[in-house]
């Protein structure tokens, strides 16, 4: 029986990989290629000439101006870069063109290998409505909701039928954009207008649909791997309930609420969902799990996830290497689903956002960077001391991942690593993570997708601030002010000092003659 393209076409050659992305994920993919001995090509916009992924890539091609539309989203330019450098495969990373079925098809039409799922699977899962239709046939449980393409009036009536609270979601959406929770009918009109406006500006498509909002639900997702030989496994779950405005901030594997029996059932559901679209390569089935452990399919992400490292640490599988292996048409390494993950892993997303100012994005030059290390610590990062964070791209600049034999050990290592992590030159959310790791509810694993918004604050601390800490802050501020004044005094009376500097220079010049 001919199952798929690999058996028809034979093994795909991958001798050089172009990475159609930037930042930490481009670096991550370069690392996997290096480990496999495959040369890499990086692409960059005007502002990324000195970015880390360009410093690490074997070859680099300039592809345009800073806005994504004029560089990282230009399909023909990226294909051209591959042709120019002789790259025979393209890895899209996440974001940008990763879930663009047209691009995947174009790559294949140009005779290049696409390191990702079939374009048809991307297209079906990329549209939330067709995704629901596809998985339904495989008895995958769905959150009650509406179809796409309804008018505001129809949606309003549907909301009454489903029952508040409801969630408005963009048909073409992702990353929380175009998404709004509505708790009462009188807020509906304004929320739908905002959601449509956001969806229109983010995806060029203002269509939205409704879903019942499950209160205090957890976001739990399953990692899927499938090769062209019909093998398909899951690599266990990731708990991603720590989010803010639907953006994940902390992920862990496994989840405190899954036992082996539930993992097996949910994992089988995830495998079925992936099968419903003939999935090949790495993908993720996102689910909501309510307090009674009922689970519902949310969507499938047809790409490598940001949080893939936590799965790697508890399974020992290098997901990017497997992606390349699968794209080559070989059998993937894992032969069985993972029902007993090894130890515990946790990831904190380090974002250039100010947690003390409503998570406002921050830009600037990194002046000082001390990266944590030591037992059980992994850092996937796109920054270095002296690198510039520009306003054009995502605010996530690095990921801090820790591993331990138990959840407690992983958390203690995370606390230690966060305390070591020093980034100066812009605002970042490390203080948020430090405070989160001090939250008793988080430590106890009592979390849900609204935890950050509803149960967490940056201004009240669960452990008392000691008098000594206040005093230390007072002393530090006062010494700073005192030095500033002393320095200002010196500048005013600096006539003599300037002259002496000048004398030193001329004397030095004479000595050099």
């Amino acid at each position, binding site marked *: 029986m001919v199952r798929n393209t690999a058996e028809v076409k034979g093994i795909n050659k991958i001798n050089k990989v172009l990475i159609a992305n930037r930042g930490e994920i481009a670096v991550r993919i370069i690392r996997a290629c290096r480990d496999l001995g495959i040369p890499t090509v990086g692409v960059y916009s005007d502002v990324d000439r000195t970015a880390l992924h360009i410093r690490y890539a074997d070859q680099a091609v300039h592809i345009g101006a800073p806005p994504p539309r004029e560089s990282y989203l230009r399909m023909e330019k990226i294909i051209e870069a591959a042709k120019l450098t002789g790259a025979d495969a393209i890895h899209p990373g996440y974001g940008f063109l990763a879930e663009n079925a047209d691009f995947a098809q174009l790559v294949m039409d140009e005779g290049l290998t696409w390191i990702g799922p079939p374009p048809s699977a991307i297209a079906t899962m990329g549209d939330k409505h067709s995704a629901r239709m596809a998985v339904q046939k495989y008895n995958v449980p769905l959150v009650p909701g509406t179809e796409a393409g309804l008018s505001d009036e129809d949606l309003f009536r549907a909301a009454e039928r489903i029952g508040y609270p409801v969630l408005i979601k963009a048909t073409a959406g992702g990353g929380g954009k175009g998404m709004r929770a509505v708790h009462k009918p009188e807020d509906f009109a304004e929320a739908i207008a905002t959601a449509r406006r956001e969806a229109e500006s983010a995806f060029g498509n203002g269509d939205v649909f409704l879903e019942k909002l499950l209160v205090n639900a957890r976001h739990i997702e399953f990692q899927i791997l499938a090769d062209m030989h019909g093998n398909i496994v899951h690599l266990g779950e990731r708990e991603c309930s720590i989010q803010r405005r639907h953006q994940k901030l902390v992920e862990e594997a496994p989840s405190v609420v899954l036992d082996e029996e539930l993992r097996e059932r949910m994992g089988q559901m995830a495998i079925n969902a992936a099968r419903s679209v003939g999935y090949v390569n790495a993908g993720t089935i996102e689910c909501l799990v309510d307090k009674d452990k009922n689970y519902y399919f949310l969507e499938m992400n047809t790409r490598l996830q940001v949080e893939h490292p936590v799965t790697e640490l508890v399974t020992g599988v290098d997901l990017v290497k497997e992606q390349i292996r699968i794209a080559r048409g070989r059998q993937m390494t894992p032969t069985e689903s993972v029902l007993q993950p090894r130890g515990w892993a946790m990831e904190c997303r380090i974002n250039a956002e100010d947690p003390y100012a409503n998570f*406002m*994005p921050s830009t600037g030059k990194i002046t000082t960077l001390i990266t944590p290390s030591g037992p059980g610590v992994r850092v996937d990062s796109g920054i270095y001391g002296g690198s510039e964070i520009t306003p054009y791209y995502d605010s996530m600049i690095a990921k801090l991942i820790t591993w331990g034999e138990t959840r407690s050990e992983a958390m203690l290592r995370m606390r230690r690593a966060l305390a070591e992590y*020093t980034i100066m030159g812009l605002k970042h959310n490390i203080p948020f993570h430090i*405070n989160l790791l001090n939250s008793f509810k988080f430590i106890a694993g009592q979390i849900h997708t609204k935890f950050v918004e509803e149960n967490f604050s940056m201004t009240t601390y669960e452990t008392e601030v000691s008098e000594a800490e206040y005093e230390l802050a*007072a*002393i*530090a*501020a006062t010494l*700073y002010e005192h030095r500033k004044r002393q320095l200002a005094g010196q500048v005013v009376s600096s006539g003599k000092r300037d002259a002496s500097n000048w004398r030193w220079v001329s004397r030095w010049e004479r000595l050099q003659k």
Partner: protein
Amino acid sequence: MKYITTINDKKYEIDIDAHGNITVNGEARYVDFLALDGGGLYSVITDKRSLQVVIEEEKSNYSIEVEGRMFEGHVFDERAVLLAQKRGGLGGGSGEVKSPMPGLIVAVTVEIGQPVTKGQTVVILESMKMQNELKAPVDGLIQSISVQKGQSVEKGAALIIIAPPQE
């Protein structure tokens, strides 16, 4: 030099003499305070702790981060304290809303003359793919608006000025 320093709501009298000796509320303290990077990162060694702190200052208003905790403070010398007391107390924030980063104005949600309360959204700024709600830093009346929808702004650009409420 004598300073009055407030941290959150606590008040400290700190004296630094010509030799750099420090007393806090009259008690001597051993403190070694060293800049690490010229950009606000400091190492502080006291007789009890060795810590790294991040200090930011704007017009003697301080933000001090110690192990993930943020302290807000003000440092005054004796003369400034006297002046401030005449004006009716220490502290009091500015009513200016500035753009915290380069971006695009998506919406201005207030009008001139409109009363606002601290924390109310006044401008929506899009940057780094996100819509950010800029909030009123103080209660008051919208005195001036210097941007409009669709306009690109640089970091630090003045957007809105809020005047204190009239009694």
